[in-house]
């Protein structure tokens, strides 16, 4: 390898990224826009603020008892009763997600409660009335929370506050309040964005090699004293430099959107180290793709064989860990989640193990890519 040749080829690669709009978008603008857009979309979700569910209430009874029930729903602090006059509008709003549930208080509800309070020990004296409840079946939380909250409000209406704490021989101790970091959905996604940003290098590397092969440039370089190691070395260096900028873009954009990682300088260095190992791996995937693809168009398509699993199993998309372990991006996301969100020590056994596994993975892939491309890539 000669430094002058490697430097010239590296400069050429970096100019390609900067000057070709498609590359510029994939490498820099895509992670920037993705991070900013996700910050806007998910930055406010899961901040630990009050969670409330709107309940449409159709009060056909209109007695002090039904009003008392509605007041108890409101007192729950979780349910927000909204009065509706007709069932059609209420169910339409439920279907459109404007309310989470519809509660219909039937006529005669007050009479039932009156009879119960007058004769609590004689069920045969109570005229039975039924509260009708419709729920948003698309939300598991609504399905589990709203009925129990309404049951609780009804119990308080019938029996008073003491109904919530009946005499019991067992008590729950006062909970120890532990201060925890309130994470937004965006915070949880950020570690995966570091992986997401660099996995498209597979496509770019495969396109570089197939295009240069198609256009006869590689053949032209082959009649100079340039060696294969000069070409592969420059490709690796250029992509590592690109990766550094990509990591910085994700850091800055996520910080602007409110992400505050734990782990300090050590965490930042860990992010650079492990993400750059993933860059190396994706350069290898790019070489394997370029070996298989006959044209740059085919390379674009084939590269998704490597991009999609990393995207879906190893970034911010929840995936079963047993499968995710097979994709390299999993180790980046997992490590950065531990360091940035849980404050794990950067020298912890788990972090070092993940970096080690990814290093072996990446070096194996790049070695395989170089061997395959050198042997079969110039056909």
């Amino acid at each position: 390898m000669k430094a002058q040749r490697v430097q010239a080829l590296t400069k050429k690669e970096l100019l390609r990224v900067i000057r070709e709009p498609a590359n510029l978008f994939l490498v820099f603008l895509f992670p920037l826009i993705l991070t900013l857009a996700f910050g806007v979309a998910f930055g406010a979700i899961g901040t630990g603020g009050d969670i409330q569910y709107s309940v449409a209430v159709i009060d056909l009874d209109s007695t002090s008892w039904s009003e008392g029930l509605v007041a108890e729903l409101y007192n729950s602090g979780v349910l927000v009763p909204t009065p509706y006059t007709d069932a059609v509008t209420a169910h339409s709003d439920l279907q459109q997600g404007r309310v989470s549930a519809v509660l219909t208080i039937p006529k005669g509800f007050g009479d039932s409660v009156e009879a119960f309070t007058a004769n609590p020990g004689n069920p045969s004296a109570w005229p039975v009335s039924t509260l009708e409840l419709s729920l948003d079946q698309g939300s598991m939380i609504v399905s589990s929370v709203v009925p129990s909250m309404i049951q609780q409000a009804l119990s308080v209406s019938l029996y008073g506050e003491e109904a919530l704490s009946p005499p019991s021989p067992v008590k729950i101790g006062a909970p120890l309040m532990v201060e925890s970091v309130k994470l937004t959905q965006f915070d949880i996604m950020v570690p995966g964005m570091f992986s997401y940003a660099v996995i498209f290098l597979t496509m770019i590397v495969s396109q570089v090699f197939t295009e240069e092969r198609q256009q006869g440039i590689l053949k032209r370089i082959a009649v100079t004293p340039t060696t294969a190691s000069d070409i592969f070395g420059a490709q690796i260096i250029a992509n590592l430099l690109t990766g550094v900028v990509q990591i910085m873009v994700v850091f800055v954009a996520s910080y602007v959107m409110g992400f505050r990682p734990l782990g300090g300088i050590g965490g930042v260095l860990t992010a650079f180290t492990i993400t750059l190992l993933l860059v190396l791996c994706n350069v290898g995937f790019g070489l394997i793709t370029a070996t298989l693809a006959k044209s740059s168009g085919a390379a674009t398509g084939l590269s998704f064989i490597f991009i999609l699993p990393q995207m879906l199993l190893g970034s911010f998309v929840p995936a079963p860990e047993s499968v995710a372990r097979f994709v390299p991006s999993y180790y980046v996301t997992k490590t950065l989640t531990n360091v940035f969100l849980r404050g794990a020590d950067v020298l912890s056994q788990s972090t070092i193990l993940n970096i080690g596994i990814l290093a072996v993975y990446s070096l194996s892939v790049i070695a395989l890519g170089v061997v395959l491309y050198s042997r079969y890539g110039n056909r």
Partner: protein
Amino acid sequence: MIDAIKIKGLVKRFGDITAVDDLNLNIMKGEIFGLLGPNGAGKTTIINILSGLLEPTSGSAEVAGYDIKTQSMDVKGLIGVCPQHSAYYKYLTGRENIELFGDLHGMPKKLLRERTEYLLENIALMEMADRKTGNYSGGMIRRVNLAMALIHDPEIAFLDEPTVAMDPQSRRATWDFIRDFRKREKTVILTTHYIEEAENLADRVGIIDHGKLIALDTPCSLMDKHGHENLEDVFITLTGRKIREDV
């Protein structure tokens, strides 16, 4: 005279097809050698073997005294190859494309800058030198293609159809450039479809057909020997085809 290139019994087969058939040829240092032949005759295959892109099936060749099989890196340091189809980086400027190939040949930076200026001036590309080659006309691209091959001032230049798609003015400039090579004792192997180009430039021409060297001499001697007034007629007599019939 010293031989720049020595070829002995060179054969190249692709499966059942023999692209180069027992070629024996010596090209002298400082000579402009025209390699003529119809499309598919084997000219580009010969250049590819001599420049180390292809391995011969049998036979041997030396370029500037180096064996092409065992000393290909030494050969590559001394040759410049201008391919038939322009190969360049569209996103680089003309200057950057030329300088890149100088760097690949390990030229000292100062010399590289001076040589780039000299070439840009001589191929009349100084004004467009800092624009991306993606915006160049066909003729300008051909000129950059030539400059990329000659940036390191090679001892031996393989020019495969160097003036295709050039306007007459650029072609004349390229011819002057090639003649200047000869003055400086450099060797040029020129393949061309333009018979007048070979007549004007080449000290000797070799006519290749079906991989075989069927004639070898100076243009004048070939015309005298076959009783023709131009090389085109000699070519037709020998091959039964016009050189440019399928161009």
